């Protein structure tokens, strides 16, 4: 698919990690783990609103 105009929020994302990470103190542990869990759960919010629109 041709590249679309950039949007504030990419597909699959409600609150981007780049925005969330700014709110956190310096991560001393595994940042990748924190990011993955954030993104996985954030994606559920995306599913919620788009399924409301499309399925219900």
């Amino acid at each position, binding site marked *: 698919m041709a590249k679309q105009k950039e949007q*504030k929020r990419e597909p699959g994302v409600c609150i981007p990690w780049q925005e969330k990470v700014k709110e956190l103190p310096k991560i001393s542990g595994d940042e990748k783990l924190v990011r993955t869990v954030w993104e996985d759960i954030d994606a559920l919010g995306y599913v919620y609103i788009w399924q409301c629109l499309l399925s219900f």
Partner: protein
Amino acid sequence: MAESSKVAQERDMEKLYTQRLKRYVTAMQNEKPDMVPIRPFVAEFTAKYAGYTCQEVTHDFEKAFAAARRCAADFDWDAVVGNMVYVWTGLTQAIGMKYYAVPGIDISPDTGFQYLEPSEQQAFMKPDEYDKLIEDPTGYLFNVWLPRISTDVAAMGEPTSLRNNLSFLKGGMAMLNYFNGFGRQAQLLRTESGTVSAISGILKAPFDIIADKLRGYLGLVTDVMERPEKVLAACEALMPHLTHVALSGADPDKNVPIGFWMHRGCVPFFSQEHFDKFYWPTLRPIIEEIWSHGHQVLFYAEGDWGAHLNAFAELPDKSIVFHVDKTDIYEAHKAIGHKFCISGGIPNFLLSYGKPEHVREYCKKVIETVAGDGGYIMDASAILQNDANVENIRAMTEFTREYGIY
């Protein structure tokens, strides 16, 4: 049941499932299976057959699942949808969605749920809000659209409330519960009756979704004349999201197609010019993208899409299954049957009010004309609701099994 007999039954069901899956997939690849597959999209028909009201299968999804399984066990069908009634009004009520007429609350318990479209003035999206939607579709849906379509969700800047908070909490948990139920249902269909779950995932066209849930049909009719560039930009902004949602729900094994529900983008709801300008250029790339990932799309072409068959013929071979509602099935077969599998085309009116012998005659003609080289799946024209006659559905099923052997 003795252990050995249970094991034997499980083995038989798995064998039946494998045969049916092969039959269904072969036809969808526009090839010739051992016999014509049967894949009826049975919605409120399941309630009628299993002894439930429309209210029961709409408001209690476990009853809807049970009714679908009961039909799958009693009819020799290759594939069904786990719950073709689909909308669970327990969920939509928890969220506070305004646009449903719910059986047993707003309408008779024996009438299927209805969508209520607001007047043009009350549309959920206002005509001057296109830029907000285009800039950030997900943000727009959460911040503007959801508060408007819900009785409970507070608009941005308004005080929150218990009902607001509960709408998200209950709605989110209920949706997860329901979607998880589909996985369980697919497994039960497989093990109890050897039946394939017919589709996986959902797609709607950008142009359609603007009419269905945002501007309303009349609003969009106005917009294509008064602000066409905004309509096109909005369709383009929705494309990556609709593609993402479709792919994220697709069958990981790439056997069954993504369900694509086609509503009012065709002539005469819109002109050919509008189809060419808005509908097709913002849908075709989505289908091609999905196909590049190895997934087919089932075009559930509600209404008559005969004016657009040449456009669909532009798509890659086998990338879609074209379901016939009011489109002339013989024209469809002539125009796109060499590229795509065709399904449906048995009129719902006939299945509701005709006699079984007339159903058999109609099925015979369709099988002889459309299914000769494979690439056809037996089904009604539109989803089967509680007006469908059980004897006619039995006639469609049994005749196809008798006559549809290659």
